[in-house]
């Protein structure tokens, strides 16, 4: 038990990496996902095909395979670019994990965006067209508010999945929360306490976020106040 207290600094560092990796990947994948989703939904055929290939391929492959593959493939390229190699954010593992998680999650977000956009009722859009709104006004006042508030629960749940999937980056050696716990019990061989602690922390974080998401869902007016 007191091993945990002695090593708590390492665990906190790992937790920090996990959260930062999750946030960074989340934001990047959100942006990428929106672009991909719009591309998938658009009428330009080549865009549609390329984005479809990427999305379908990424969604059929296990994330571990994706992470390890990107780590092995992109590291030479990243190593030759050679930006801030000194701290952990410049390390190959972090960058590979970031790229892999962002690309992987963006495929799922693209699907969420696509179904969100499709779910806006056709008669609303037609009414907007009849009223003389142009494309951008339609997007701004009718389509986006409706689609975004419908996508919110799925997006939050995808983000929670992302946080859980950061634990897979321990496979390539990134010292995030899971791996920092592993390092401790590799030395002390007291796996039980550390693993239970790791499970508890993940549970608290992810369940907490899902509770927040449920509150938001039940009070759509809160979303309106946030500007949606």
């Amino acid at each position, binding site marked *: 038990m007191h091993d945990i207290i002695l090593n708590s600094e390492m665990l906190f560092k790992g937790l920090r990496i996990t959260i930062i990796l999750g946030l960074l990947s989340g934001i990047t994948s959100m942006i990428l996902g929106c672009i991909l989703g719009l591309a998938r939904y658009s009428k330009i055929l080549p865009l549609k095909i390329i984005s479809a290939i990427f999305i379908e391929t990424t969604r059929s492959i296990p994330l571990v395979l994706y992470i390890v593959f990107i780590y092995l493939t992109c590291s030479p390229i990243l190593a030759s670019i050679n930006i801030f190699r000194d701290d952990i954010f410049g390390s190959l593992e972090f960058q590979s994990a970031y790229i892999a998680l962002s690309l992987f999650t963006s495929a799922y977000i693209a699907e969420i965006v696509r179904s969100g956009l499709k779910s806006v009722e056709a008669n609303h859009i037609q009414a907007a067209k009849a009223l003389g709104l142009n494309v951008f006004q339609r997007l701004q006042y009718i389509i986006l508010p409706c689609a975004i508030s419908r996508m919110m629960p799925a997006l939050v749940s995808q983000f929670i999945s992302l946080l859980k999937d950061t634990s*897979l980056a321990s496979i390539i050696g990134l010292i995030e929360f899971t791996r920092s716990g592993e390092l401790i019990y590799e030395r002390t061989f007291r796996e039980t306490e550390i*693993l239970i602690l790791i499970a508890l922390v*993940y549970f608290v974080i*992810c369940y907490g976020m899902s509770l927040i998401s449920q509150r938001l869902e039940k009070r759509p007016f809160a979303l309106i106040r946030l500007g949606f």
Partner: protein
Amino acid sequence: MYNVDFSVVLQAKELLLQGLMITLKVSLMSSILAFVLGVFVTYLRDLPNNFYKIITNIYVEVARNVPLLIQLYLIYKVYPHFGLTFSPINCGIIALSLYTGAYISEVLRSGMNSIVMQQKQAAYALGLNYFQTFFMITFPQAIRIVIPALGSQFINLIKNSSLVSFIAVVDVFYVIYKGAADDFRIYEFFLVGALIYMILSGFVALITNILEKKLKVYGREVRV
């Protein structure tokens, strides 16, 4: 600098086939167990008794919010200290079933909720008890509605099965990783691995599509 050389993969053909068998076995057994578990949990959830509601909620929330890797390690490394030792394959099957079962129960629950209350009330009025109502009226309808979502859960299960390679189960990912580590042929092995998983997922997607078309309930769609 690098010549793509697939002959190494062909040499490892037997091991790959063996790995594929194991992946299929793990996926199949976990799917069945997860489905049974999901149905069971959904059944318990709607019972009027509060106690079952609390227990099932705890199970579902814990299984959904702890990463699968951690759950797997817990079953493999920690449970033996409390007396429950399983072989690596069984650890994998149990972990996968518990994890996916929670998600399946959520999917089924959303399907159940879309069945109108009046049907249940009519069933009770006709004298059917809870068990009969569940399995003869609501559940069959609910399943037909959520087939696409169920299918995607089974695809996730196949993809998550790759995690059992970390407790020394010789599945597809284990063979791929070993091939890349021992023979230094990274691209070839990973490409083949990706292809295998794509084919497996595609197969499940195909079956889901066929089932959905055959059992489609018109006028009802659940937004998952």
